[in-house]
């Protein structure tokens, strides 16, 4: 009888465990497929962009030498801008599936996929933007021709070898003195060498951000794998920020290192390291109040950040004179520009305006200012929320600016990855979808 009783009791727990097991299996299978899909799309984009010159690589207007195409150029297929847009949107779909299935995946698979994706975009040509040649142009203007990047418009030296690849021609350097001085060191490598050195720096910085997200998430008691996936598998980060070798990634590395140190209780070193990010690009300044408020000893943190700031200003003035101070005003300058892909410009299709009209900009700026004050006050009162407040202030900036470029997503995603609430992560995914779709969908129409 006992054996009969056991045989009757067994099917009940088996039924209870079968469905979760199957669901777990399906999630893992979908997750693995989405990782494979991301790698496949990245391979098609990177090798296709290198195969033939198309609008996907703006710098091709100066020629398409091997050092620009990279080592994947004989492996690819003809990738028109339309095909590029389709593949980026497909990547977005795979990214969404990978995020939903991240907890069912092995960490090794996710980390391995992130490394492969990073290497693929590193090996491809500079995608969608020629900004990286602007960096090289200012560096060469300073080192080879004795011109000050903070008082000389880009593209000033027409006879320089980099000029034919440069896309900008009418503004001075908006970047910080640390970045400008660092780019000076690349000039002896020549144009091609400087390009690949910058690409390598951006690759290393992005993988460094991945490591910092992992380490910080563990310190905060968060699951590190979903946090890592939000950044490392993000198509906007990979295609635009990494693919375009943008210095925004370089800016985020010291900022994330500073955040890690603050979380680890290093109240002086953390803010000091984070302040170095402002020396790369002033946009990092938005996160600084929150980094200081996140420290346990705020006065110490404030002192360390101010000391680093004073040091940066001194370096800037010694190296470049008083004109270097203009880089601090980059956010104000950009608010007067019109990228055509901003949230304000897109709202125009609903409310009936074109571009970024002054009234809409003013309203957006005022709302951003008010929200920033609220978030700083909130982080002051509730120190536990400082990372979330930093993330939401970045969301507010991205929504309100009239100069929104796809690679600015890298300002937000690492902060959102470390959020305790799902809402900020959802906002980061939403902004990712926006910056990708606002560029890709018009190409498909």
């Amino acid at each position, binding site marked *: 009888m006992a054996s009969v009783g056991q045989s009757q009791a067994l099917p009940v727990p088996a039924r209870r465990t079968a469905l979760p097991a199957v669901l777990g299996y399906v999630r*893992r299978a979908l997750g*693995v*497929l989405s*990782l*494979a899909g991301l*790698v*496949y799309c990245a*391979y*098609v984009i990177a090798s*296709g962009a290198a195969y*033939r*010159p198309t609008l996907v690589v703006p710098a*091709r*207007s*100066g*020629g*398409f030498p091997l050092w620009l195409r990279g080592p994947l150029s004989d492996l690819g*297929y*003809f*990738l*028109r801008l339309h*095909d590029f847009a*389709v*593949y980026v949107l497909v990547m977005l779909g795979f990214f969404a599936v990978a995020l939903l299935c991240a907890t069912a995946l092995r960490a090794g*698979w996710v980390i391995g996929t992130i490394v492969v994706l990073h290497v693929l975009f590193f090996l491809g040509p500079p995608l969608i933007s020629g900004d990286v040649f602007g960096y090289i142009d200012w560096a060469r203007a300073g080192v080879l*021709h004795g*011109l000050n990047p903070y008082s*000389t*418009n880009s*593209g*000033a*030296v*027409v*006879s320089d070898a980099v*000029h*034919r690849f440069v896309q900008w*021609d*009418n503004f001075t350097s908006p970047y910080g003195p640390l970045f400008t001085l660092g780019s000076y060191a690349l000039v002896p490598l020549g144009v091609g060498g400087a390009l690949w050195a910058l690409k390598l720096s951006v690759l290393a910085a992005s993988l460094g951000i991945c490591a910092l997200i992992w380490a910080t998430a563990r310190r905060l008691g968060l699951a590190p794998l979903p946090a890592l996936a939000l950044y490392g598998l993000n198509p906007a980060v990979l295609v635009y920020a990494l693919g375009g070798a943008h210095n925004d990634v370089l800016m985020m590395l010291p900022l994330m290192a500073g955040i890690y140190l603050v979380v680890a209780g290093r109240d002086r070193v953390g803010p000091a390291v984070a302040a170095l990010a402002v020396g790369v690009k002033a946009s990092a300044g938005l996160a600084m109040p929150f980094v200081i408020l996140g420290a346990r000893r705020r006065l110490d943190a404030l002192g360390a950040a101010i000391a680093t700031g004073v040091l940066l200003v001194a370096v800037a003035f010694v190296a470049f004179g008083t004109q270097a101070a203009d880089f601090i005003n980059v956010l104000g300058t950009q608010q007067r520009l019109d990228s055509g892909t901003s949230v304000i410009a897109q709202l125009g299709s609903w409310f009936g305006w074109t571009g970024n009209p002054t009234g809409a900009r003013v309203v957006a700026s005022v709302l951003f200012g008010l929200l920033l004050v609220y978030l700083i006050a909130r982080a002051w009162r509730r120190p536990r929320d400082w990372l979330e407040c930093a993330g939401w202030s970045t969301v507010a900036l991205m929504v309100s600016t009239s100069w929104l470029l796809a690679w600015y997503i890298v300002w937000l995603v690492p902060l959102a990855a470390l959020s305790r609430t799902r809402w900020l992560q959802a906002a980061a995914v939403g902004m990712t979808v926006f910056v990708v779709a606002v560029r890709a969908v018009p190409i498909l129409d």
Partner: protein
Amino acid sequence: MRRRGWQLAVVATAVVLMGIGPGGCHKLDHRTAPQKLDQAMSKAFKRAFAAYYRMTTERPRSRIVSYAKTTCHPREPVPHSDRGWRWFCAIRWIRRDPTTAGTATYGVEVDPRGCFQASSASFPPRAYELVLHRPAPNPLDHIRSCP
């Protein structure tokens, strides 16, 4: 064993996907065509003229040339090797401030990827680069670009 099965499945999927190539994309077996080269050469000429204007005046003005009509003809059949495919292009152009019109001719070599190098005798080989206070190669004399 179970873990190895997953690894094999993923690697096999990736290899198969990369082997079949990208959907919607194809290999291109031609370098260029007259209309394509006409357009690419017009754009490259406008860009080179803007560079020349910048070089001699220090003023950036990307739309200094308001009109550039290019007509290109191949001077030989497509070479079977990777050497440049020789074309001849004539450009009628109009610039702004002051409005001036002119004609330029270029000998063009198109490489297997459709990129080209164009040389002309219609412009002086060197021009004065104001920002460096010295003569430098004239960007209109030798143009390198891609469609």
